């Protein structure tokens, strides 16, 4: 479905006119090919959008440009100058004129704007080696004016509005060089911004381009990209699925390129839901953190998916159900009785388990053994005997290791000695050993290899079959499509859609999630529930 691939012959002659020309890049991680003959051609003075779903390879391409990863093969030309991709580092990238501003802006929030500039470019000094604050202030004020930032350089960064913070990061990245010879790469610049802040920022980015600045922008939010970009390159499965030059595509066209022919889901469901139709979890008008008036019901034995972009409130929803956050308003019931967990152990006692999104930071005890990582969730239960013999825990751990197919030296092996997939199996086993009534999974297969992924899916299905209600939040649409009986789409804290398994294909689901809700109305209809329960 290549809409308008750059003609092969044209690239070599057009190289001189291109700001950046990346050709034939291969990159593999272990057995998986992240990039296959990928290319990116950016015209000077334009905003170029780099698009693609999860795992499409766009992040890998950016990281190769930044010198984080080394490409296996490929050529790179920046402003007519050839750069070897072998031995290409972040220093070469900077020397070649690439400037990166990531989602995490890398600003020192508590320091003033001028110090943020000076820490990057150096402080102007007087003869004694002291800082010439006056000179620094004048210099920074000049740069800020250039970037249409009407702020005092002495103000600390955390005082600024979010879009201005991003602009400060951009100005800092571009300071002190001929901006026409620089390429600004914005990696998900609006992911953590509210809609009006995004618009302010994008307007300024567009004006930068009008002044001759070359910009590459990576974003999930198609509407925003459409409003600002001249050219588009869409990645899918490590290849260029489409390159549109000076085009005005519609959102639907882009989505179809991005989602088109997505690899088949591991196994589509639909026919074999295990739900008994008895409501297990009822959430009524819950607001908490980014969540706004969320209402839904999950049933016994049902696998319910929560789809949504980063920042849509997926994780907040699960953490609220797990008692880690207390909702501001709304009520919940679990198994028919009121459920208002005030802490995580409240929720655990009520039969809830959570596999958090960030395994390393929120689930792992890296320097402890597998046995201890498993038994930590059972301390209260084991304590009933007032004695916690290691032998009993070891037996239990051996049993779980075998039941969940964990590949590990044994219960006494350190958690950190396992691969990501096996670590995740242990974290899931940690909760399933408690026979939870409600299992919450946040990105259950992130950083997990394909084989472990299949094992984990099977494990989830088996526990649903045993009557456990499973809620899966994921940014991977093929995962939700393969696993779930029903999927709720969450956008900016609200449930905007409800989809039954088998109703939609993966690419349709992807487009539902990618499409920003134009109106903020809740499309949730309680009647749809009855259909699920009887199916």
């Amino acid at each position, binding site marked *: 479905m290549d809409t308008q691939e750059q003609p092969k012959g044209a690239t070599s002659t057009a190289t001189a006119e291109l700001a950046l020309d990346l050709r034939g890049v291969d990159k593999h991680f272990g057995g998986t090919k992240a990039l296959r003959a990928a290319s990116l051609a950016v015209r000077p003075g334009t905003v170029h959008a780099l698009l693609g779903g999860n795992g499409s390879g766009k992040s890998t391409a950016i990281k190769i440009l930044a010198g984080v990863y080394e490409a296996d093969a490929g050529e790179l030309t920046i402003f007519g100058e050839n750069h070897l991709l072998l031995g290409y580092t972040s220093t070469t990238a900077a020397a070649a004129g690439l400037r990166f501003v990531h989602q995490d802006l890398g600003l020192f929030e508590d320091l003033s704007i001028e110090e943020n500039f000076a820490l990057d470019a150096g402080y102007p000094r007087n003869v004694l080696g002291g800082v010439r604050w006056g000179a620094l202030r004048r210099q920074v004020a000049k740069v800020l004016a250039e970037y249409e930032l009407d702020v005092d350089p002495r103000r600390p960064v955390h005082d600024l509005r979010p879009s201005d913070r991003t602009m400060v990061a951009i100005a800092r990245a571009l300071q002190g060089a001929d901006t026409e010879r620089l390429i600004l790469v914005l990696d998900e610049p609006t992911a953590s911004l509210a809609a009006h802040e995004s618009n302010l920022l994008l307007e300024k980015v567009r004006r930068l381009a009008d002044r001759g600045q070359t910009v590459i922008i990576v974003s999930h939010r198609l509407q925003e990209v459409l409003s600002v970009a001249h050219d588009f390159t869409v990645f899918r499965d490590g290849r260029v699925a489409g390159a549109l030059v000076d085009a005005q595509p519609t959102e639907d066209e882009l989505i179809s390129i991005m989602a088109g022919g997505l690899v088949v889901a591991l196994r589509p469901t639909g*026919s074999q839901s295990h739900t008994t139709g008895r409501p297990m979890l009822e959430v009524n008008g819950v607001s908490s953190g980014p969540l706004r008036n969320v209402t839904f019901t999950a049933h016994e034995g049902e696998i319910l998916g929560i789809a949504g972009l980063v920042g849509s409130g997926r994780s907040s929803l699960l953490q609220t159900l797990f008692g880690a956050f207390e909702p501001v308003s709304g009520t919940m019931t679990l198994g028919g009785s009121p459920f208002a967990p005030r802490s995580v*152990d409240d929720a655990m006692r009520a039969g809830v388990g959570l596999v958090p999104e960030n395994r390393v*930071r929120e689930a792992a005890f890296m320097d*402890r053994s597998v046995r201890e990582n498993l038994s930590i969730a059972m301390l209260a239960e084991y304590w009933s005997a*007032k004695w916690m013999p290691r032998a009993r825990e070891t037996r239990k751990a051996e049993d779980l290791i*075998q039941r969940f197919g964990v*590949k590990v030296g044994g219960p006494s092996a350190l958690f950190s000695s396992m691969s990501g997939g096996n670590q995740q199996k242990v974290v899931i086993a940690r909760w399933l050993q408690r026979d939870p009534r409600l299992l919450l999974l946040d990105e259950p297969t992130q950083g997990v290899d394909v084989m472990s992924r299949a094992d984990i899916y*099977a494990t989830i299905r088996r526990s649903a079959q045993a009557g456990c209600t499973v809620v899966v939040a994921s940014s991977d649409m093929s995962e939700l499509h393969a696993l779930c009986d029903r999927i709720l789409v969450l956008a900016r804290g609200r449930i905007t859609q409800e989809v039954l398994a088998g109703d939609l294909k993966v690419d349709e689901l992807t487009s539902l999630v990618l499409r920003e809700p134009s109106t903020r109305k809740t499309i949730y209809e309680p009647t749809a529930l009855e259909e699920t329960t009887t199916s």
Partner: protein
Amino acid sequence: MTDTAAPPVPPATESIVTLKRTPLIARIFENYALVILTALVFLFFTFYPASSAAFPTINNLNVILGSQAVIAMIAIAALFPLVSGHFDFSLGATAAMAQVLCAGFMANSGWPIWAAIVVPILIAGVVGVLNGFFVTRLHMNPFVTTLGMAMLLSGVTLWYTGGQTIISGIDPAITRFGSMRFMGLPLVVYIVLAVAAVAWYFFTHTPYGRSLYAIGSNAASARLVGVRVDRNVWWSFIVAALIAGGAGTMQLARMGSATASAGNELLFPALAAVFLGATAITPGFFNVWGTVVGAIFVSISVSGLTLSGASGWASNVFNGIALLAAVGLSTYLGRRKRRG
């Protein structure tokens, strides 16, 4: 059920991947290296001409064990916050305060012995409550907070004693107790062993102790498996202070007098024992029995050095070197273990 992707549950033998395992002998050696080293140091001073006359006598061993009992007790106290990843520098000062208060209550206020023992321990507990409050509720840095607390306590005890050593008016029952023996060993040694046994039970067989290790490993993960992180860390400061208070009254029983001090002569050897302990039994991790062995190692070495004619500064130098070596070694072992 058309579950085509049936879980490939491999037979048990296949799920066990053979890892690079240290041979059993090597592991025993690693776990008990400190015990072996302690024995070697003991043998050395027994046969070293300069110390062989005084060192291996029952009397000297009693002195060693008796005087080091207090330090071992403070070392066990320090374990509680350390296991959960927090430093408590006020334990030495807390013990010194309890010692002075216990003596002062008997000598100056004429309190009965039981009240003069119990009240200082409770006051020590209040110090732990404050430390825990500052660290868990106000999120103050534990290192600086407890250092400040130590300074505050030593100042207050100095004010209480007016700089005088309290020596008369102390109930002789408590000093009698301090020099009492049971089966040839000072009674206080059994108390320390009992405290160690209870601490071991706490750390290995109660949810509270196990949760402290989890918190020390990853507090965010601990919170998401239902551990009340703040509450348990707070309790670790309280328990540590209570044990240190007990150690203070024990010190009074041993010495029969009390002088205001910052308690550093108690705290630093205790920390050396704790960190040395982290190199033994379960290498790389703080543990109770390793701590006890560490305390014995430090006391035997210091006593041997003193009896071979080394000057007073030798014990400080030794404790300093032991602390540095212990921290270095336990960090190295921990890191190697974490790497797998």
